């Protein structure tokens, strides 16, 4: 019952600007290349595997839902140049041995067709980087560690292409924002409070510290690390504050940023210490989990948290891609918890794969003639507005990742749904149907899309 009410509320909000939805299904928003080869009777597989049940499951699980919905959509609209679209995926549970096993299975069982693989995690990318290159398999990834994209030396572009900017570049971009806004961040000092591992540690390093320091934004040398299972991180947060930090930056997601925010509220320092993070902190999961603890003004602890936003978000309803995905989300009766950034971006990933496939097939003449090398040539030459503008796929100068970013802030909707609430008294509170209420999270861009600094050295 509560899920139904939440769903209705979200549908109401996100559908408010879409009066035509009830009558007509929206057209596919991408400007896809025209098919020159008829692929009727064939199957285009979307191969992907990653952590669907381990530490990152709460953000990756909607990937499967989004790919399933996209497959359903395409097959009910004639397929890709007549070919049926399908997905082949496996859950690795965040275990690198399982990742290797999945890769071995995929690359042997689908040796002829596996030219493009979708991956989710930095750790997986780092593990498979050399093997993908040796096997000539292109990989799209929604992650951004230097090692996965450029190897240990940070200078060797591989076969992985990230849709978002490198995490370290996102951090540098945030430093630019801090330096440009001294009224929000007076005398800034950034402390890293983050998860361990390839993802958690990918946003920091000497290059980032030097760059930010050069902008007049010092960064503490020692990151404070906590685990996704930690229930108390007072020690880590106080360590950073005692070392002089007045901005805490995190490469974590879901409960990670929420826990930092609640710790700041507990310490009574949420007004003095700003919180920010990588693109995954700007997500529905964080907005909902951050409601366990309220600030003095009655809004959730994560209200006012800054973060990177290299994609569009659900609330940017004037965009055709967002409208389309929202409509598909509702039509497929997905649960509110799945309405996160992974669902949105996965539609984009499928769109990119389809566009790359069409272009390559047009060039080589048939689906069976597509090889990893041919696919790579396509991917590197593509300048493509994914799903009509969700993000831009453009590979320049041997780079392997997205280069445009924005800074956004997490807020919560006001009662009239005309903007963010200023306090509990004017906030929109939705009954969860089980005696509780929740605030509706919004992600509001504060800047335009701009190039990120290049910090990988």
């Amino acid at each position, binding site marked *: 019952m509560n899920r139904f009410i939440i769903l209705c509320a979200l549908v109401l909000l996100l559908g408010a600007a879409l009066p035509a939805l009830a009558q007509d299904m929206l057209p596919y928003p991408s400007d896809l290349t025209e098919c020159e080869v008829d692929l009727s009777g064939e199957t285009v597989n979307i191969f992907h595997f990653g952590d669907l049940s*381990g*530490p990152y499951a709460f953000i990756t699980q909607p990937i499967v839902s989004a790919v399933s919905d996209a497959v359903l959509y395409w097959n009910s609209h004639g397929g890709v140049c007549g070919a049926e679209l399908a997905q082949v995926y496996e859950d690795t549970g965040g275990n690198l041995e399982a990742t290797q096993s999945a890769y071995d299975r995929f690359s042997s069982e689908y040796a002829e067709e596996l030219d493009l693989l979708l991956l989710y995690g930095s750790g997986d990318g780092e593990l498979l980087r050399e093997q993908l290159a040796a096997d000539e398999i292109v990989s799209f990834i929604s992650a951004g560690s230097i090692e996965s994209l450029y190897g240990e030396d940070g200078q060797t572009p591989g076969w992985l292409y990230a849709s978002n900017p490198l995490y370290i570049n996102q951090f540098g971009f945030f430093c630019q924002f801090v330096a440009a806004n001294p009224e929000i961040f007076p005398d800034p000092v950034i402390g890293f409070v983050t998860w361990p591992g390839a993802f958690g540690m990918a946003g920091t390093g000497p290059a980032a510290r030097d760059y930010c320091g050069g902008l007049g934004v010092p960064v503490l040398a020692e990151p404070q690390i906590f685990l996704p299972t930690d229930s*108390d991180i007072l020690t880590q947060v106080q360590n950073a504050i005692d070392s002089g930090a007045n901005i805490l930056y995190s490469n974590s997601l879901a409960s990670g940023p929420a826990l930092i925010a609640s710790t700041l509220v507990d310490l009574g320092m949420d007004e003095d210490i700003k919180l920010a993070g990588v693109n995954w902190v700007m997500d529905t999961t964080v907005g909902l989990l951050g409601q366990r603890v309220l600030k003095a003004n009655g809004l959730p602890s994560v209200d006012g948290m800054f973060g990177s936003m290299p994609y569009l978000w659900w609330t940017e309803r004037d965009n055709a891609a967002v409208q389309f995905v929202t409509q598909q989300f509702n039509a497929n009766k997905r*649960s509110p918890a799945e309405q996160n950034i992974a669902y949105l971006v996965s539609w984009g990933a499928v769109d990119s794969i389809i566009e790359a496939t069409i272009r390559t097939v047009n060039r080589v003449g048939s689906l069976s003639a597509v090889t990893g090398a041919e696919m790579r040539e396509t991917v590197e030459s593509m300048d493509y507005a994914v799903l009509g503008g969700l993000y831009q796929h453009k590979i320049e100068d041997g780079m392997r990742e997205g280069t445009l970013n924005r800074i956004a802030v997490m807020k919560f909707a006001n009662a009239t749904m005309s903007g963010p609430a200023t306090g509990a008294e004017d906030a929109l509170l939705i009954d969860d149907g089980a005696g509780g209420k929740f605030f509706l999270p919004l992600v509001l861009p504060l800047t335009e899309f701009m190039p990120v600094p290049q910090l990988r050295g």
Partner: protein
Amino acid sequence: MLEIIKKYEAQLRWALYALGAALLLLFLADQLAGKKAARILQTLLSGILVGGVYGLVALGIVVINKASGVFNFAHGWMMVVGGMIFWSFFSVSEISLLGAALLATATMLLAMSTASFSRLRQRRTQLLVLGGSLLLTALMTAGGSDWRWLHALSGAFAGAMLTGLAVERFAIRPLIGQPLFTAVLMTLAIAEVLHGVTQIAWGTVELNLPIFVNPATGSRFQPIRLEGLRELLDGLVIVRVELVIAFVLALVAFSGFIIFFRYTSVGLAMRATAEDQQLAQAVGLRVRVILAISWAAAAFLASIAGVLQGGAVGLSLNISLVALRVFPAVLLGGLESISGAFIGGILIGIVEQFGTLINSSQQVGTNLAPYLVLMLVLVLKPEGLFGEKRIERV
């Protein structure tokens, strides 16, 4: 020289231990010298309170070990299942009567047939199953959302009983008389099954479990601020209420289980069963029932820990990993010791927090310090701090 060393071997060993301890203390004193008193007290408090939750998790593992000698690797997943069942009843306004009745009936059927399924043929047992099922169903569904605490507690209780009894009945019981290692491996299989069941039933999205919410404010309980000590300690020390609640619950559970094992016939029978299941059966102890009770009790403890952890950070599959962090606490306290589990949990909590205070960037607190302490203790006392020293007669 060699003769002297041989003669005073024991004394020399203890002198080396003392030297090591002194060096460790000197190192800690150096590391903590620049820290404010408030930080040191805060770290100690956090360690004790977090350690209480570790102790609660460790207790569940020890209960199984004490009764059956099996180290339960599925305990973390039993925490997740317990937490998820609680969430299902806590967060849903209209609970399915049929679902609740099925859960209650299955629980009662298994509970009343622990000795054997043939008992279900008896009229008295049938009436008990019926009465118990009706009562449990009523507790899980009666009233509206104002009664959700009652719904959730009874649902979690029934769910935990069902999980524990089912695991014992269908996975552990067939292994009675087999080498213990077989049962240990079985717990690994149970963990995977519970993992799969959780994923299918509740998905993998992290769930909010707002149990530590003050109804008046809609926010989590405000932490207790020791403002009076601010000047004295040169900083603010806070105590998080939810961790205090978890700690108190852990204390209650420990006290209950200590009394249970020391002073009840079932508790004593459990200890006897752990020594030798076949011998215990030969002297008339109902090993099956005893094992069933211990698995149900462990599942119940796991549920409590799952709910507390879920309430503190959110319910996700990651909760199962807490059990891995607790393994050093179990070994430190002693595998068979109830009080050892509690003290081991607190010690590990304190060591983790101080390790983090000294060096968080290298994860000294979570990856190194607990295991160093564990190694040190096991070298000195291989049976753990409070474990039973076994003397094998040959």
